[in-house]
C-alpha cells in the first residue's frame, strides 16, 4: 500500500489525503526515549498504539492533535506515516518542547 498523505501543491493547506483513507502516523525520537501518549482527531479521542496512532480521514479539514512525552528536554521528534508496505514517509520533524507537548496536524480529506 502506497503512502497516502501528500503535501498540498497549492500551499494553501499542509497535507492532503483521500477521504475515507485509514492512516497510521508514528513518532520516533533522536533519544529513542519519547512516547506517544495521546491523540485526538476532530474532537474525539483516538486510541494510541505507542508509538503509532491509526485513524480514518473524513471529508474536509481533519485536526489531529498528538501529545508526546520525553525525559530528554532536548529531544527531536520525527513524525512519519507508516505506509504499510515497509516504507515510511516523514511528515514532520520538530524540537521537543516539554512545556508544549501537543502537536497538531491539519489533513484535508478529499
Amino acid at each position: 500500500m502506497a503512502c497516502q498523505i501528500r503535501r498540498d501543491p497549492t500551499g494553501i493547506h499542509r497535507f492532503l489525503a483521500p477521504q475515507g483513507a485509514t492512516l497510521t502516523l508514528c513518532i520516533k525520537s533522536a533519544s529513542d526515549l519519547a512516547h506517544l501518549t495521546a491523540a485526538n482527531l476532530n474532537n474525539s479521542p483516538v486510541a494510541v498504539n505507542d508509538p503509532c496512532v491509526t485513524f480514518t480521514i473524513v471529508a474536509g479539514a481533519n485536526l489531529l492533535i498528538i501529545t508526546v512525552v520525553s525525559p530528554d528536554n532536548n529531544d527531536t521528534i520525527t513524525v512519519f506515516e507508516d505506509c504499510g508496505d515497509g516504507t515510511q514517509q516523514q511528515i514532520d520533524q520538530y524540537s521537543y518542547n516539554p512545556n508544549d507537548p501537543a502537536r497538531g496536524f491539519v489533513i484535508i480529506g478529499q
Partner: protein
Amino acid sequence: MRKYIFVSLLLAFSLVRAQNPPANTPALRPFSDVLHSIMTPPPAKTRADGVEDFLCIECNHYNQFVQYATASDPARLKELAKQMQLKLANQVEQSRVDMQSGGGPGASGSASAVAKAGLSSILSAAIESGAITQAINGNTINITGNVDAVSRFLAGGPPIPYCPASPNPKAGCGTPVLKDLGFSVSVDTDQNSTKTASTSATDNPAGTPSTVNLLAGKNRFAGASLKYVFRNPRDVHSSQFRTEWSTFYTNNVTQFQNAGAQLSGVLAKVFSPIIRDRNADYTAIQMRHRPLLLAAADQAALETQMASYLDEVLTFGRANIPDFDKQLRSVLSAYMLYLGNVNELLKTINEKAVFSAEYNFQRPQGQPDTSAFRIMSSFNPFGRDANGTLSVNVAGTFYNSSSVTTQFGRWRDAQASLQLERRIGDDLANYPARFSLAAYFQYMLSPGLISLDSGNFAPGTNINLGQSAAIALAPIGPIWIGEAKLTLKLKGSGAEIPISITESNRTDLIKSTVTRGHIGLTFDFAKLFGSN
C-alpha cells in the same frame, strides 16, 4: 520546596525562552522565538519557513496563542496561574513519601527506627509514643519546618512562593540555601514528676501531714535539629537511565496517557471548530496575512503584522465559538495541570537519590546531653519505580559535656539503619497506607550513662554526690532492632497515623530483649495548601 520549584517553572508562562531577546510587544513575548526565527532564520531554514510556522497555530502554538489571547487580562491570568500552582503543589505534597515528620530513633517518643532524607515543605507536627533505642517509653511532640517557608510566613507572605517564568530556570525559586534547610524541635510530654503541696492542718482530719507529694506531669525540651538536603540531577543519556525510564514509563503509562488525553481533548474542543469551519475562514485569514508577514521590513513591522494576524484569529473565534475566552482559559488550565502532573512524574525518574545531612541536639531523659550527626539518603532500588523507597541512615552520637567525655570518652555510639517502604495501592497521591520494614544497628562505644543530680548518693554508698554526675549503667556493645510499620494516610487531610512494632536485643541502658509498640499522629500543613 524543590517540588514546587519544578512544577512552577513549568507553568504556561515559562514558554518564553531565554536565548532570544523578548518581543517588544508584551503580548507577543510568548512568540519571541518564532519572531526571531523569522527575522533571523536558523541554518537550512528560510524566512518563509518561519512565517509558515507562525501561521500554523494548530501545529505547535496552542499554548502561546492562549497566552497571547489572555495577555489583556494579566491580573486574572496571574490569579489563575497561582490557583493552578497551589493545586499542583497539593498533588505533589500528597504523593510525597520522603518526609520525616516525627522524631528519629533516638527520641524518647518515636515510631521510626530510620529517618527519611526529605524535608517538610512548610511545617509539620507529630506526636509519637514509644521509644526505639531508649530504655524508657515516652511521648514526644516534634515540630519540623522548612526555614524558607516559615520565614516567609512569619514575614506575612505566602509560605509557598509564586514562581513565574525565570530567565534562569535552573536557579529555581525560593531563597537559595534556605529552601533546602529544615529544622525540628522536640518536646517530651507528661514526664512523671512529683510536686510538694502544703496542706491546711485546720481543715483536714487529724494526722494529715503538713505537706504531701502529688504526682504531676511536665513537658521538657528534648532536642532540636538542623537538616540540609542535597540532590543531584540524573544523566538521561546513560544506559542505566534508559533502562529505568523504560520501566518507569511502563509502570506509569496510564497516568501519562490520561494527562495527554485530557490536554489534547481540551485543545481539540477549542481549535477543532476553528480548523473545521465550513467556510474555511481560518485558512482565508492565513492566506491574507502570509504576504503581509513576508513583506514586513523590520522587527517593529513584523510584530505589528503578527499581532494583527493573531487578533483576527481571536476575533473569528469569539464570533463563532460560544464562550471562546472561557474555553481559552480552560486550555491554559489544562496546560498547567498537564505540565504539573507529567513533569512531576518525570521528576521522579530524573532525580538521583536524595541526600541530606542533619545535626541533632538531644536531651534524653535522665541521661547526659548528646549531639548526633546523621547522613540520610532515600532512593528507589527497583529501577526508579515510584512505589518502593529505601532509606538509609548512618549516624554517630557524642556526649556534649566535658565532664562526661573525660571519664567515658567523647563518642557514645555509631548507628546504621535502613528501611524499605512501599505504598499500598497504585495511586501516587491518594493511596490509603504505606508499609515498611526496617533494620537498625547501633554500637555503644561508651557504656549507657544515666545522670544523677547533686541530691543523690554515690551508688552503693551513703555519700552525697555534691554535684551532678553520670554513672555507667549498661555495657558497650551492639543494639539490634527490627521494625515493622504501617502508616495510615487520612486522605486529603495531611494527617497520618504511624503504627509500628519493634523487637530489640537491648536498649541503651538495659541489657534485655524488648518488644514494644509505637503509635503516633503526624500532620503536614503543606498538604492543606491548594487542596480546595
